[in-house]
């Protein structure tokens, strides 16, 4: 009797509570981000006669908005995400076109923003999520080892079309994210190794042609040149990276202490609230603190991949994989740049870097993963 009554056969509308581990890590990283932004921007803002907290407060507003976005996206079922994916993709294309039109704002030689008064929308960040959802939708029907060449072509078109606009902005970093994410999703979708090798070869050929045809901007080549000549001090890109490495090195094992980073606080390191925020972390909190942050990212990625593994359908599985790959690539490229392993590309660090569009895009991503988690298939125990 009792054994029969223990089996509940009623359909379960809400199978799970939110993934508190995922949200906990996100919250921890966001809080650290606010602290580091205050630490690096505070002294300079104070010196300029502005409020010490002003930049941090702006980021805090983004974090608040992000929390709301996260909750809303979590409550949206993964089925709805699946249905909404084509519309999201279409809307993203419209935004990408808009940014290249006179509506777009030109800053630092690139046209990447749409000014919305309160904050600037950066459609390429929105596009990262759009591409992941669209890819997940397209790859969901693929069976293990049965990827058709036609579908591969379609995938190429799906990713290639927005890439054109992003290339025109230009935003090389986002294109690289597309490439990496696509590769990871194709792999999980069951693409054969031969096809993947073929894709890599094609990508290399395309890069070669781009360099041959002078399609890359001067600064993009300069960054590569700087990377291959790390001791050439006259290059500005090297200055940034060398300063970053000096700052990180001076952090030592335990760091100089929060708010004590002489190199970052004294503004030797440029763009330290955005691209080089990890430099401040490593200088002030040392090897221990930096490793802890990387560990948090590893846990985040692990958690998302876990969600992918137990998602109830292929769409959820692929979307979560894409999001994990996106986080992983951002973290690797951004920190790799700060420690001097990789050339300078303007990829921000998820949840830590200052910036509204990027933070919201990352919040949406976590929300989608959470939504997939909450509607997962029951995990068989024993």
């Amino acid at each position, binding site marked *: 009797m009792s054994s029969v009554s223990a089996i509940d056969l009623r359909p379960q509308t809400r199978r799970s509570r939110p993934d508190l581990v995922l949200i906990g890590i996100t919250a921890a990283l966001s809080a650290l981000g606010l602290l580091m932004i205050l630490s690096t921007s505070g002294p300079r803002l104070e010196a300029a006669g502005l409020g010490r907290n002003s930049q941090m407060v702006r980021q805090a507003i983004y974090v608040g908005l992000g929390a709301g976005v996260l909750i809303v996206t979590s409550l949206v079922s993964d089925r709805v995400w699946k249905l909404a994916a084509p519309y999201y993709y279409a809307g993203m294309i419209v935004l990408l076109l808009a940014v290249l039109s006179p509506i777009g704002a030109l800053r630092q030689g690139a046209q990447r923003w749409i000014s919305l008064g309160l904050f600037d929308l950066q459609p390429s960040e929105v596009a990262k999520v759009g591409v992941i959802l669209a890819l997940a939708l397209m790859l969901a029907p693929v069976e293990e080892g049965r990827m058709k060449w036609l579908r591969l072509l379609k995938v190429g078109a799906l990713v290639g079309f927005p890439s054109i606009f992003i290339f025109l902005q230009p935003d090389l970093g986002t294109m690289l994210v597309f490439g990496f994410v696509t590769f990871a999703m194709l792999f999980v*979708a069951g693409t054969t190794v031969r096809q993947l090798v073929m894709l890599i070869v094609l990508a290399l050929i395309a890069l070669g042609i781009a360099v041959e045809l002078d399609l890359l901007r001067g600064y993009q080549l300069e960054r590569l040149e700087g990377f291959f000549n790390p001791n050439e001090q006259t290059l500005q890109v090297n200055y940034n990276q060398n300063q970053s490495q000096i700052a990180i090195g001076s952090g030592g094992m335990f760091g100089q202490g929060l708010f004590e980073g002489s190199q970052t606080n004294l503004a030797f390191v440029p763009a330290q609230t955005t691209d080089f925020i990890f430099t401040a972390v490593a200088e002030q909190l040392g090897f221990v603190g930096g490793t802890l942050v990387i560990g948090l990212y590893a846990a985040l990625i692990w958690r998302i991949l876990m969600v992918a*593994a137990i998602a109830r359908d292929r769409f959820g599985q692929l979307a979560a994989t894409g999001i994990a790959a996106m986080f992983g690539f951002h973290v690797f490229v951004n920190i790799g740049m700060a420690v001097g392993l990789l050339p300078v590309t303007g990829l921000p660090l998820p949840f830590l870097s200052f910036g509204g569009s990027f933070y919201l895009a990352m919040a949406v991503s976590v929300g989608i993963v959470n939504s997939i988690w909450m509607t997962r298939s029951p995990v068989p125990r024993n």
Partner: protein
Amino acid sequence: MKPAWRIATVGVALSALLGILVLRMWFLQVTDVEASLDVAASQRISIVSIEPPRGDIFDRDGTEIMAGTVATLRIVVDRKLIPLEREEGLIQNLSALLGIPAAEIRQEFVDRGSGARFPVSDGIGESTAVFVLENIERFPGVAIEPVPFRVYPLGETAAHIIGYIGAPGPDDLGRVGIDPNDRVGRFGVERSYDGLLRGTPGQITYSVNARGEILGVLEETAPRPGGSVVTTIDLDVQRFVEDTLLKAMALAAASGEDQVKRAAAVIIDPRDGSIIAMASVPAFNPIIFSDGQLTEAEWLTLRQEEVFNNYAMQGNYPPGSSFKAIVYALALENQISPIVEEEYRDIVDQTEDPFAFFSDGELLFTNTPPLNDWKDGGHGFVGLSSSLIESVNTYYWSIALAIWQGRDIAWPENLLQDWARSLGFGARTGIDLPFEGTGRVPDREWFQSLQAEGSGLVRSEGGWSGGDLMNIATGQGALVVTPLQMAVAYAALLNGGTVWEPRVVSTVVDSDNNVLFTNPPSVARKITIGADTVAALKRDLNGVVTAQNGTARRAFEGFCSGDVPDSECAPLREVGGKTGTAEIVQATEEGVTAVDTAWFVGGAPLSDPQFIVAVVIEQGGSGGQVAAPAARRILQYLMGEQPDPLRAGDDTER
């Protein structure tokens, strides 16, 4: 699930990437941490140098300042500390404060470039400085800085000795510790003692941020002021000499020598080689190199008048008859008798004086035109004494002929030149001032090398001849000397053979009067001169100014103050000297004209010489006419007599 291994693979790949990051951080922060720490520390400091006050220059008593430093204030702008949007406002405020057009200041901003630190105004008043400091919020990035400013209270007096300072030249930049923004000694004592005068700069080490904003002072080393130079110059004498030279030039101009250009004089102590006074007029005021007030036109005028050279030691002049005293001493030391013309040999032999000679006013040789003495009809019977007193050219030509005939038999060919060189001619005397002239003592070797070069400065035909030596004996031809060399040589002849390396600086002391450096009297060399020779020379140099036929007798008339007649004037028996008139043939548009440079070189008191005076009036006419009167006035002053107004002496020995 089938694709579980694929998801796991993605996880492993991403973990590997993050693992690489951790390894890299281990390398940067733990293994290689020392290097990073060093670089980071060096970036956080900024070192600013503080200019030390330059040492003073004093007269021989150490009482009167010849060059000094006063502290003035200046406004310095540091563009690193000015927010860009506030620059225009700052320029307007500075313009209003300093009365400088805004456009000028703006141009300065542009010229200096962004991030530069530069002065916008030197020598601001204290009230201006206080105003800036009290209203500093209106002057962002502005600092008030003390800056040493060089002053020369004497004006033109002793300007050539003191010298001046200025921006370093290429030669200065090679020295240790000289910065292109420094001011360094460029002339005179300012230059030759620059290293001791300039002191050691101090240093402030600031901690700064990346934009150079100063956060605090880490370390401060005070600058060490430069040492003060005590010269050997007697400023009373110096002023008197300069005044006399200017009057002598006026006198020469009034006597018809309207081409008179400048005058120079040296007074040296024959007992230790110290320069008591040294003047070159017209002079300049060294302040023009410090205050920046000189206009271009004024500068060009001064350049044209060549006032910046110290002709007393840089001017190369033919010495004329003033060189005869050198030949006189040589003849006496080596018992060289003059060659007497055939027709007078008998009557000269009757005198039984080996130095006897008969002058009929011209010297005849078989294959040259007759050489004429300056005095028509000649001087009659001439001995060694009267040859100097009356400045008999034919006599010294004959001495030169005697040297020429005895060359390589009784003595080397360069007997006269070697003697002149041993007295300091033809080379720098080694005075502690820059840019000294060397003069020139010509000989066969010199002549041949110039002839071989085809320089056109010497005859292209024929060789070095006795005629060339005859020219040297009368201070003409290619022989040139500086007034300083002349004074050093006369000092050696009168002090018994000590050739001094003259000095203008005796000691350098610090602010507590501790001696940093001493420049003791220095003997260049000792030469052998018999006491008889010195006594004879003294007697005959006195004869020049007292004897009936003395070329400077008229100039020295009434040497004693009041109505004391010359026969009873004891100080007159203590002075002596030699006139000289150097002919310089000039080719001008109107044809070839001869202009004369007037010399007088003498000493006093003859019984125990303390002063050697050399006076040159360039293109001033005859030595007896203008140079001797100027020297008389100076010697009167030195001997404590009442100096007379300048009046012309005899027009002698052209």
